[in-house]
C-alpha cells in the first residue's frame, strides 16, 4: 500500500477543491493497472489492486455497526456483495470526513452516523459505479446505459468482466455530478436482514485491534494519579515507593496540575507505580459538596420560579388551569449522576515520526477534537498531526468530551518527554468510574390537571439540572436564549399535543464535569413524560395506550409515534399479561426515531421482580441493516434498564464514592429474560438508532412495576434499587 504518502496529497487536493466527489491525484491508473497500488475513486471508495472494493468509513465503530452500515451503502450502489468489500477508517480531515450534521467537525454522536451519511455514501458508491461503467463502455464500444455492475462484474451488452479491470481508466474520468442512485426496488443489501457485521470475525477470534491493543516498539505506559476532587491541583508528590517498582521510569506532574503522570515499561508496572505514588493536593478550590447537597440544590430549584420559560407559556394561566382542575397529579423526580463505563477503559497511544509528525492511535469518536488540541499542544500545523482511528470498545458518549480530555492528557504526558519513545496512556476501571464526566443529575416537578372527563387541561413541568453544553466549545451549538436544549429535549419537542403545557428550566451548578450519556437529556425527560402519562391515564380511568393516543395527532410526527405505540402493544399482547405478570408501556421519539416498549414482569417486592420480556417497536425510517437495528435496540434497552435498576454515582466531600463494577454494577445476562423487536417498514430517510431504545426502556419498566405493585411511590427517584424496588 502506498497510502501513507499518497493519501495525504490526495486529501490536500480534495480539501482545496472542496469537492464532495473527487478523483484523487494519486489514483494512479498505471499503478493500479499493474496491480501494485490501491486507487481512490473518490473520498469514500477505493478499489484495491486486487480488485476488491474498500469503503472509507468516517465514523467510529464502537459497536453500533457504523462500519457495516456505511459499507453497505457503498456496496449497494457500487454493485458488489458484502463479501467483496472491506472497510477502513478515514484519516482525520474535517474538510472531507466531517459529520454533515455537525458542520466542519469530524465526529460521531447523536445517533447520526447513518442519518448524515445515507445520501453521501450512496452517492459515492454510485459515482464509483458510473466511472467504472464509463470506462468499460469506452473500451467495449457500447453504451454505458447498457451496463451495470453486478456482484463486482461489469455486465451488459453481452459482455462481462471484473470491475477491477477498469479501475485505471475510471480513475482518469470526470466524476459524475449527479450519479444515478439505485431505486429502492433494486436494493439487495439495504434492508436485508441477512447482512452480517463485517467486524464479527475479528471480534470473535481475538484479532480485532482496539486502541488498548496498540503495542509500539519501545513504548512507555503512562497512568495518571488524578485529583480526587474536581478542581484540585498537585502541590507535590513523593515517588520513592514508585521507584521500588520494577519497570518504573519516572513521574511528572501534568502542566494542568490535575494529576501526576507515572511512566513505566509496561501496564502492570505503571499501575503499581502509580498506586504507590504519594501526592499532596491543594484542594482549596476543589469541589467539596456531597450528593445530598447537590440533590437539595436541584430539588430546591424546582420550587422556585424557573429561570427559563422554555416554551414561552403563559405560566400563570397554566398554573391556574391545573389548580382548578378536577384532579391534580403531582410528582417530583430525581435522577442521579451516571458514569458511562465503556468496556474498554480509556486509552490512546501517541508517537512522533522521523518527519516530526505526531501520530495518535485512538478509538477516536471525535477526531477533530484531539486534532485541534494537538495543534496547540505541539504547535504544529494540522497536516503534521495524524489520527489513526481504531476500533473502540464502547463509548456511550464518554469518548466525545468537548475538551478531548484523555487525548490531551496523553499529549501532555508525551510533550514532557524527549519524544523518543511512544507513550501509551492507560486508564483503569477506577480511573474511569471516578473520571469526572457524568450524565448530569436532574430533577423534575410535574403537576398535571385533568378535567371531570379525564382529559388533560394543564401540564406544569419544571426541570432543574446541570447543563451539559454551557461552558464548553459546543455551547453555541445547543444553547439558545440561555436554554440548553439538551436538558429539556424530549419535552420541549415532544410529538404529544398536550393542552396547557408550561415548561420551565433552571440550571444548577455543576459539581463534576457533565457529559452526554447515551440519549443525553432523553434519559430523564422520557422517564418523566412516560411515567406521568401513565399516572394521568390511571387517574383518568383510561387504558395507558388509549390515553396516549388521545394526545397524538393522526399525521406526521405524532402518527409515527402512535404507530410504534400500537405495534408494540399489539405484538406484546397488551392488556393480557400471563397470570402473575404485569405490563408497562412507554413510547418516545429521540434522534429522529420512534420507539415504544412494553415491559412484562413477574414476582413481587419480597421475592424479587423479574423482567420476563421486553417487546419493542421501532420506526427509524429505512433500516439499512435491520439486524443492526435490532441489536442496537437490545443494547440500548439493556443500557437504560441496567442503570435505572441499580446505578448511580455519588459524591462524598466532592469525591466519587464508587470505583469499579462491584459498586457500579453492570446489567447482567440474567436481568432481562427476553427482548423481541419489531421494525416498522418505512421509506423515510434513515434516522438514529444507537440511542433511541434507551429513553423509553426505564419508564416502561417503571410503569410495569407500578402496575405490579399497584404503587408508583418507589419510582420517583433512580436507581430503583435504592428507592426500595427489589430485583430478583
Amino acid at each position, binding site marked *: 500500500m502506498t497510502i501513507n504518502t499518497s493519501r495525504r496529497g490526495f486529501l490536500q487536493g480534495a480539501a482545496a477543491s472542496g469537492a464532495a466527489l473527487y478523483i484523487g491525484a494519486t489514483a494512479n491508473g498505471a499503478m493500479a493497472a499493474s496491480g501494485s497500488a490501491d486507487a481512490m475513486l473518490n473520498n469514500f471508495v477505493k478499489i484495491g489492486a486486487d480488485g476488491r472494493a474498500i469503503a472509507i468509513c468516517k465514523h467510529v465503530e464502537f*459497536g453500533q455497526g457504523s462500519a457495516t452500515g456505511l459499507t453497505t451503502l457503498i456496496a449497494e450502489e457500487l454493485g458488489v456483495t458484502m463479501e467483496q468489500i472491506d472497510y477502513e477508517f478515514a484519516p482525520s480531515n474535517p474538510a472531507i470526513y466531517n459529520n454533515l450534521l455537525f458542520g466542519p467537525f469530524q465526529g460521531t454522536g447523536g445517533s447520526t452516523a447513518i442519518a448524515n451519511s445515507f445520501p453521501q455514501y450512496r452517492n459515492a458508491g454510485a459515482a464509483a459505479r458510473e466511472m467504472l461503467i464509463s470506462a468499460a463502455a469506452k473500451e467495449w464500444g457500447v453504451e454505458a446505459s447498457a451496463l451495470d455492475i453486478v456482484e463486482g462484474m461489469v455486465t451488459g451488452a453481452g459482455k462481462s468482466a471484473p470491475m477491477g479491470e477498469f479501475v485505471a481508466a475510471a480513475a482518469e474520468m470526470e466524476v459524475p455530478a449527479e450519479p444515478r442512485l439505485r431505486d429502492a426496488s433494486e436494493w439487495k443489501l439495504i434492508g436485508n436482514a441477512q447482512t452480517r457485521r463485517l467486524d464479527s470475525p475479528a471480534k*470473535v477470534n481475538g484479532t480485532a485491534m482496539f486502541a488498548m491493543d496498540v503495542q509500539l516498539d519501545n513504548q512507555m505506559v503512562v497512568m495518571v494519579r488524578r485529583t480526587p476532587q474536581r478542581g484540585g491541583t498537585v502541590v507535590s508528590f513523593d515517588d520513592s515507593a514508585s521507584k521500588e517498582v520494577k519497570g518504573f521510569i519516572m513521574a511528572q506532574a501534568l502542566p494542568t496540575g490535575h494529576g501526576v503522570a507515572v511512566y513505566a515499561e509496561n*501496564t502492570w508496572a505503571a499501575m503499581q507505580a502509580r498506586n504507590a505514588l504519594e501526592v499532596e493536593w491543594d484542594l482549596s478550590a476543589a469541589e467539596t459538596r456531597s450528593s445530598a447537597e447537590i440533590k437539595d440544590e436541584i430539588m430546591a430549584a424546582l420550587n422556585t420560579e424557573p429561570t427559563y420559560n422554555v416554551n414561552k407559556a403563559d405560566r400563570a394561566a397554566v398554573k391556574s388551569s391545573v389548580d382548578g382542575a378536577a384532579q391534580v397529579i403531582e410528582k417530583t423526580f430525581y435522577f442521579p449522576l451516571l458514569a458511562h463505563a465503556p468496556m474498554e477503559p480509556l486509552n490512546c497511544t501517541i508517537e512522533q515520526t522521523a518527519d516530526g509528525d505526531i501520530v495518535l492511535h485512538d478509538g477516536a469518536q471525535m477526531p477533530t477534537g484531539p486534532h485541534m488540541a494537538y495543534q496547540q499542544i505541539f504547535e504544529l500545523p494540522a497536516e503534521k498531526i495524524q489520527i489513526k482511528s481504531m476500533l473502540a470498545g464502547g463509548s456511550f458518549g464518554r469518548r466525545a468530551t468537548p475538551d478531548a480530555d484523555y487525548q490531551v492528557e496523553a499529549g501532555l504526558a508525551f510533550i514532557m518527554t524527549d519524544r523518543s519513545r511512544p507513550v501509551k496512556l492507560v486508564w483503569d476501571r477506577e480511573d474511569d468510574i471516578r473520571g469526572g464526566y457524568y450524565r448530569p443529575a436532574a430533577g423534575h416537578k410535574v403537576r398535571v390537571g385533568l378535567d371531570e372527563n379525564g382529559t388533560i387541561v394543564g401540564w406544569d413541568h419544571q426541570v432543574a439540572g446541570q447543563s451539559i453544553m454551557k461552558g464548553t466549545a459546543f455551547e453555541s451549538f445547543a444553547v439558545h436564549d440561555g436554554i440548553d436544549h439538551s436538558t429539556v429535549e424530549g419535552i420541549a419537542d415532544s410529538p404529544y399535543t398536550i393542552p396547557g403545557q408550561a415548561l420551565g428550566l433552571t440550571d444548577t451548578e455543576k459539581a463534576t464535569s457533565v457529559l452526554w450519556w447515551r440519549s443525553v437529556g432523553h434519559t430523564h425527560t422520557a422517564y418523566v413524560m412516560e411515567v406521568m402519562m401513565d399516572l394521568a391515564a390511571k387517574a383518568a380511568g383510561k387504558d395507558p395506550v388509549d390515553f396516549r393516543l388521545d394526545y397524538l395527532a393522526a399525521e406526521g410526527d405524532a402518527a409515527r409515534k402512535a404507530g410504534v405505540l400500537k405495534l408494540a402493544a399489539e405484538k406484546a399482547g397488551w392488556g393480557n399479561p400471563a397470570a402473575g405478570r404485569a405490563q408497562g408501556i412507554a413510547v418516545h421519539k429521540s434522534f429522529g426515531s420512534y420507539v415504544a416498549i412494553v415491559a412484562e414482569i413477574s414476582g413481587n417486592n419480597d421475592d424479587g421482580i423479574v423482567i420476563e420480556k421486553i417487546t419493542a417497536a421501532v420506526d427509524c425510517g429505512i433500516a439499512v441493516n435491520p439486524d443492526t437495528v435490532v441489536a442496537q435496540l437490545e443494547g440500548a434497552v439493556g443500557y437504560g434498564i441496567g442503570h435505572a435498576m441499580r446505578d448511580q454515582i455519588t459524591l462524598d466531600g466532592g469525591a466519587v464514592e464508587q470505583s469499579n463494577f462491584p459498586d457500579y454494577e453492570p446489567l447482567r445476562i440474567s436481568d432481562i429474560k427476553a427482548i423481541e423487536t419489531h421494525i416498522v417498514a418505512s421509506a423515510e430517510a434513515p434516522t438514529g438508532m444507537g440511542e433511541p431504545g434507551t429513553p423509553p426502556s426505564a419508564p416502561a419498566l417503571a410503569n410495569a412495576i407500578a402496575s405490579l405493585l399497584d404503587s408508583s411511590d418507589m419510582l420517583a427517584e433512580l436507581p430503583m434499587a435504592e428507592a426500595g424496588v427489589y430485583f430478583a
Partner: protein
Amino acid sequence: MSITLKLNGKTHEVDAEPGTPLLWVIRDELKLTGTKFGCGVASCGACTVHLNGEPVRSCQTFIEDVEDAEVTTIEKMEEDKVGAAVQQAWMELDVVQCGYCQSGQIMNAVGLLKENAKPSAEEIDEAMYGNACRCATYQRIRAGVQRAAEILEA
C-alpha cells in the same frame, strides 16, 4: 523471577515479578492482545482464559501460580472443536457489538459447553453471570451458546 509458561501449546520463559497478573504477561510480554483488561478485579470477565481447560479470570490469576499449567487464550479457539463452534455461532447471530468483552464471553461459554453440552437458558445465565457486556449483547450471548450446542450436537 523467570517462569516457564505453557501458553497455547508453546512454552515460554517469561521474566515477571511474583504477583504479576497472568493478564499482563499475556498482553504486554507475549503480545497476545485478544485477552482484554476490563476491571482488574475479576468482576467483568473480559480477561477470561482457560487454565487447564477451566475458565479463570487472568487479572486475578498470578504468574507464580500458573507454572506447569496449560494456559489457553482466545487466539487458540479456532483449533478447539467447542471454541470453533462458539465462534461460528457468534458470527451467525452477530453477537458482538463493540466486541471488547467478547473474547472473555467466548472463553467462558466454551468452558460452560465443555461441562454441559446442552445448557438451559437458566444454566447459561448462571454460568455467564460474571461476564459483563456494557453493550448488553446478552440476548444474543444466550442464543449463541444454545446455537453452539446445536452445532456441536449435529
